């Protein structure tokens, strides 16, 4: 089970709370997912905020507020301060967006914001790319968890750069790594866990499924299967066939 900033987390699935057809379906999906961590955000109060606050408190999940939509370190730091007060947690999913079409992080502003927030005692979960140097800088800044993207947010493309993600896993064997964004199918989530990733954070794959609760259950199964497969030490791949039935003792017919 992943240990995130000293907290043992039961499930390796983190689930977002956005884009569900209804609050009831959101609650059902959470129940089916077994996720112990829910991502949330802050937006201008237009009347729905207080109902949502009551709903997320009833999920029984630990909250991970995000800084979604922030484009500068300053904006992200202020949003983190506001989130800490509203949600009563020093955990923050740090997002600093750099590109409108891909929602790629602005890794320069991200590192700057991470340094400021970590120094203030925040437990920073940075949404980053799989770039080894950026990840090293984030660790230097005080992050104890890294959250590289699998693919652009909301795209459902899966793991765009498996080689890079494997290299990141190998480079930081002791750092909790969470695939954040891009997961569309349970097979994507299982693949991440088979690589040795500690957890998967997803939202749209469940919220935008025809049956979100059923998909939440499928994701939970996939994450469990992927983790078990990693721990079971999978066989080596070969390019040529290797007969599984013994050759010795075969009859001459």
């Amino acid at each position, binding site marked *: 089970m992943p240990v995130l900033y000293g907290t043992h987390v039961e499930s390796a699935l983190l689930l*977002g*709370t*956005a*884009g*569900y057809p209804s609050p009831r379906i*959101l609650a059902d999906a959470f129940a089916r997912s077994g996720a112990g961590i829910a*991502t*949330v*955000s*802050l*937006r*201008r*109060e*237009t009347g*729905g*905020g*207080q109902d*949502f*606050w009551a709903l*997320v408190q009833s999920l029984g999940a630990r909250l991970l*507020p*995000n800084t*979604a939509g922030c484009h500068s370190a*300053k*904006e992200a730091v*202020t949003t983190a*301060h*506001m*989130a800490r*007060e*509203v*949600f009563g947690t020093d955990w923050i999913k740090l997002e600093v967006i750099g590109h409108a079409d891909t929602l790629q992080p602005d890794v320069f502003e991200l590192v700057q914001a991470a340094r400021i927030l970590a120094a203030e005692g925040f437990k920073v979960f940075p949404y980053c790319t799989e770039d080894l140097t950026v990840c090293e800088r984030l660790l230097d800044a005080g992050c104890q968890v890294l959250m590289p993207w699998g693919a652009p*947010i*909301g795209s459902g493309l899966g793991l765009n750069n498996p080689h890079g993600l494997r290299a990141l896993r190998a480079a930081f064997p002791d750092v909790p790594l969470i695939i954040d964004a891009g997961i569309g199918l349970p097979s994507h989530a299982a693949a991440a866990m088979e690589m040795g990733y500690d957890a998967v954070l997803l*939202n*749209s794959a469940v919220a935008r499924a025809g049956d979100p609760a059923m998909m939440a259950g499928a994701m939970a199964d996939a994450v469990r299967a992927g983790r078990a497969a990693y721990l079971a030490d999978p066989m080596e791949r070969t390019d040529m066939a290797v007969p599984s039935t013994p050759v010795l003792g075969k009859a001459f017919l």
Partner: protein
Amino acid sequence: MQIILNGSPCHTNAATLADALTQAGVTGHIATALNGSFVPAALRDQTPIRDGDRIEALAPMQGG
């Protein structure tokens, strides 16, 4: 005087951030920022506001 509350101009005679929020009917579980800087809940009634100030009042919302 005129202030900008959550992006919309509004008139107020409030002296503090806390008064301005009450007058505008913005209550509940929120966090506030004044001109881009976070103002903790405990300091809202000691935080004066001036003409042209930008106030953000944010509430818990769905997020990924």
